[in-house]
Each structure stands twice: as structure tokens, then as C-alpha cells.
């Protein structure tokens, strides 16, 4: 599950291209314009490599951190069917992290370095996982709507220019489409269930709506200059376009279930075919992404603890004569 890469708004376009060989750069851009994929051993601008590593790495981190809020509900899932399905779903998410770290490794950063950057707080993960899953219904809403958002983002990015990332995303999207069905089935069960169940799911939706609206990243109006990243097919869709796509696909389904979305301004503007909504609180978004959310400290502490507890296992696996090999991707 993943929203959108958080791109530093202070980076300027001309600085991104400084020092690049203009002929190689032109060839590179022509290849992308023709729809070719860039492969690990091909020439690429330094900034392309840097942005992709950051983006794929953030995506990988989001998968393993995302396993935490949902993972706590595996041991509480009500009944065999739900327990088995949630285990399989969260296992998929961890598997996605494995695929993504492998894809990022082809760009020259080891998995170990990426995980170190995660647990030291140097690299980010999807902001949405800094919020708690208070009840079983929260886990159901995450599985449906956060995964739905992730699919929109990932289907777009799967058409990007970096071969290993696209191939990983193709596999990930196939699995995510099952998660979406799983999540939807859960929410339907609760929304059509007993009064207690309906109350649980409504409360979960109310809690999760602001993070869902934040999920695709800041509004294009205040977002950074991403023209080069779009041209390089690193970033494939604007944040607002993805948000609109999500609203278009899922608001009617949510309303169909008789659930109330906590935004009085939410309605489709039929003239322009777009949704009006209350602008999400982007100060809150920035505060949370920079460590001020309800679960940032806890998520990283759990991940650090897992890394620390597993250190002796990894040390026991090391062989002096074995060389580091970049994974095939």
C-alpha cells in the first residue's frame, strides 16, 4: 500500500540537471519519450537515480510499516475465514516490501542501508500509517480504501520508465486487487451487520477520512515543481488527479453502503466532472510527516526493536567469503 512519494518542495528543476552530459541526457529523454524502459545498467541522470531510489524505498518502507497497524488485528480477527485472509493479506504487503527493496537495490542502495535509513527516520514512508487502527473496523477500512488508493497510484506508476520498478508494480497490483475485494467484503459485512457493527464501521470511516484525503499527497497548487519527474516518467500522475480518480470510484460505493463521509462540501460538480471537497489540512499533513503524528514514534520503535532483536540472526547468516550480489529485478 502506498500513496505518493513525498518530494521536497525546495528542490529546483535546474539544480536537478546540473553537471549532466547534454548528449546523453537528450538520448535518455528520447528513449523515455519513445516509451522504452530504463534498465539497471543503462545510463541515467544522477537525479533520476536519486529520485527513484527515494521513491521505491519509501514505497518499500510503507509496505513494512503498513504491516504493523493491520498486523495487530491478525491475532484478533473474528473467525477462521477473516484470520486466514488477513494473514495472507499482510503477508503480501511484506512480500511487496521484499520486491521493492530488490528493485531499489538495482539502483545501488542495499536493503540494509534502506532499512537503516527507515529506522533512523532519515527516509519517509506513507503518512497514513502514522495513524492508529483502533478497532477491527479500522483495519477493514484500511484494507478497502487505503488499498484502493494505493492501487490508483501504483497502476499509474507501473507505466513509468524504470523497468524493475514497473515489473514489481505489475505483480503488486495483481495482489492488491485481491486486497481490495477482501477489504470491500469486510466493510460490506459490517455496514450491513448489527447496529454495533454499523457503528464501528462508521466511526472508523470518520477517523480515516482525513488521512485518506491526505493519502495522495499535497494539492498540486502547493506541491513542488515536478515537471522533470513527469517527463522522466518517474511521477506519472498529479496528486490531485489521483485524488479525483479515487473520489470518483469510491465515494458512490461508500454512499451505497449508507455510510456518511465526514465532509459536508463533498459533491460532484457535474459541469466539470470533478469532485468538490473541503481542502484537507496540509499543515496537519506536514506535521505528521515530520514526526508529529499519533503513531510515528511507536511505528519506528517497533521496527527498531525488530531490527535489534533480529541482529544476531543476520550476523549468524553472514559468510566471509560470500560477495554481495545485486538482486535480479
Amino acid at each position, binding site marked *: 500500500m502506498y500513496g505518493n512519494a513525498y518530494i521536497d518542495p525546495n528542490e529546483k528543476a535546474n539544480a536537478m540537471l546540473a553537471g549532466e552530459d547534454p548528449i546523453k541526457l537528450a538520448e535518455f529523454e528520447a528513449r523515455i519519450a519513445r516509451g522504452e524502459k530504463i534498465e539497471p545498467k543503462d545510463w541515467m541522470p544522477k537525479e533520476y537515480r536519486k529520485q527513484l531510489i527515494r521513491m521505491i524505498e519509501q514505497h518499500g518502507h510503507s509496505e513494512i510499516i503498513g504491516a504493523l497497524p493491520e498486523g495487530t488485528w491478525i491475532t484478533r480477527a*473474528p*473467525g*477462521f475465514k477473516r484470520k486466514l485472509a488477513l494473514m495472507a493479506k*499482510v503477508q503480501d504487503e511484506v512480500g511487496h516490501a521484499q520486491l521493492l527493496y530488490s528493485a531499489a537495490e538495482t539502483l545501488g542502495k542495499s536493503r540494509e542501508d534502506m532499512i537503516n535509513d527507515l529506522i533512523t527516520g532519515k527516509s519517509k514512508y506513507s503518512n497514513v500509517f502514522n495513524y492508529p487502527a483502533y478497532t477491527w473496523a479500522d483495519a477493514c477500512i484500511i484494507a478497502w480504501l487505503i488499498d484502493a488508493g494505493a492501487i490508483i497510484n501504483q497502476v499509474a506508476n507501473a507505466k513509468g520508465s524504470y523497468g524493475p520498478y514497473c515489473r514489481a508494480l505489475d505483480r503488486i497490483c495483481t495482489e492488491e486487487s485481491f486486497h481490495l475485494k477482501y477489504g470491500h467484503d469486510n466493510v460490506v459485512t459490517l455496514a450491513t451487520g448489527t447496529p454495533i*457493527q454499523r457503528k464501528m464501521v462508521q466511526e472508523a470511516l470518520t477517523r480515516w477520512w482525513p488521512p485518506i484525503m491526505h493519502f495522495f499527497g499535497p494539492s498540486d497548487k502547493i506541491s513542488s515543481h515536478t515537471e522533470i519527474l513527469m517527463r522522466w516518467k518517474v511521477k506519472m500522475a498529479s496528486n490531485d488527479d489521483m485524488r479525483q480518480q479515487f473520489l470518483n470510484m469510491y465515494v458512490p460505493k461508500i454512499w451505497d453502503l449508507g455510510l456518511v463521509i465526514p465532509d459536508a462540501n463533498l459533491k460532484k460538480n457535474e459541469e466539470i466532472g470533478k469532485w468538490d471537497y473541503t481542502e484537507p489540512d496540509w499543515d496537519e499533513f506536514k506535521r505528521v510527516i515530520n514526526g508529529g503524528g499519533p503513531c510515528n514514534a511507536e511505528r519506528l520503535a517497533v521496527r527498531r526493536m525488530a531490527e535489534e532483536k533480529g541482529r544476531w540472526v543476520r550476523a*549468524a*547468516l553472514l559468510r566471509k567469503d560470500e560477495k554481495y550480489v545485486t538482486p535480479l529485478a
Partner: protein
Amino acid sequence: MEHIKELLYKMADDLLVIGHRNSEWTGLGPILEEDIAFSSMAQDKIGHSQALFQILHELGEPEPDTNAFMREAKQFHNAQFLELQNDDYDFSTIRHFLFDHADQLRFDNLANSSYEPLAKVARKIKGELKYHVFHADIWLNKLGNGNEQSHARMQTALNNAWNYALGMFEKGDYEAQLIADNIFEGEQSLQNRWLSVITPIIEKANLKIPAEKDWEPILGGRKGYHTENLEQLVTEMSEVFRIEPGAEW
């Protein structure tokens, strides 16, 4: 049918409880690949448990969800070994190794049980257990022969686990009847076969089974006596289900 129910309950509870424990590694393993491996095994164990609860249901017991999620800890028949906390990866790996070999040998035997519904399920399950045992053997060997620290950790974990593991072979009240009816070979026979299978693998991992004079099986689990760990596990497992037990979740 009480003898068959006794056998099914202890197996179903063993698998439910170890499946639950295995699933607790999700997101927390020492490497991602091990999160994924333990999750796969957890899914198999929970699935196997469900299959056995289904047979119990066909014998007149409550339907699987209610049976698994609504009993109190003292009504569980799992061996205490399986309810202990995961602790570190050393204990989890040792338990995985000791339990899965017993589990595989048990289902191998039950594949020829005279009680056909169980034999049928056992024939399907035993194919999956091959991979659980394969995984356990690899890790026992890697960590037993890894470095000084991993070796010491694994030996300590084996020492701590051993008497609990022997408790898996606690006999039930209907033991003699199960053997006489060719339903199950019996716990003593199973334990003997288990020892002969695991001993060479443990030796190859450079580890030692505790001296026989110190063997004191920790019993009681089969009769509903448990550690406080099971109480916590059952409370957590049934937390959502008990909000509205009659509802569809």
C-alpha cells in the same frame, strides 16, 4: 466417539495456538523472508486446525468459529509448549523444529487411520508439512552452525524447550482405545519415532539433546491446565468475535 473427539481436540488446539503464535512474527521477523515464511506456516496451521474443527462439528460439536473462538482457556487441550510466548527467534525456531517434526509424523500416521474422515484430511495436510519441516531443518542447521552466539542461543533454547516438547506426547484418557481401533498409533510410539528422526538432525546442527536423566515432560495441557500465556492468547484471539458472537463478521 469420545476417543476420536479427544484426539481431534488436542490436535486442533495445538494447531490453532501455534498458528496464532507463528502469525505474531508478521512484520517483526529478523529478515523479511522469515516474516513471510512464518506467515505461510501460520496460514497452513490455522487452516489445518479449521479442517479438524470441521470434523468435530460433523461429530456434533459446535461449528468451527464458535468452538475455536468462544471457549475459555481451561477448555483448550493444546500442549503447554505451543502457548508459550514466541520470545526470540531462537526459541521460535526450536519450537518450530520440535513441533513440526512431531506434527508431520502424527499426520503421516493418521493418513492410514481407520477413521476415514481424519485419514482423508491427514493425506492432504501431510504434503504441506514437508515444507514446514524442510524450513525448520534448514534454520536449525544455519543457526546451530552459525557463529558462537547463535550456537549458544540455540542450545539454550533447546534446553529450555525440551521438557515442554516432551509434554506434546501426554497421553489422553482414551489412548488405549485409539490404538486398539487403529485410529492412531499412540503417543509413546509417536514420541519414539520423533526422537529417532530429530536426533541426527540436532547432532548435525552441532546441538545436544538434554541428558535423559533430566527429562521431565511438562504435562497438563491436554487436560486443560495451562500457563497464563494461553489466557492472554485466547482473550486476544476472541476479542472481536465476542463483541457480537452471533453476528457474521
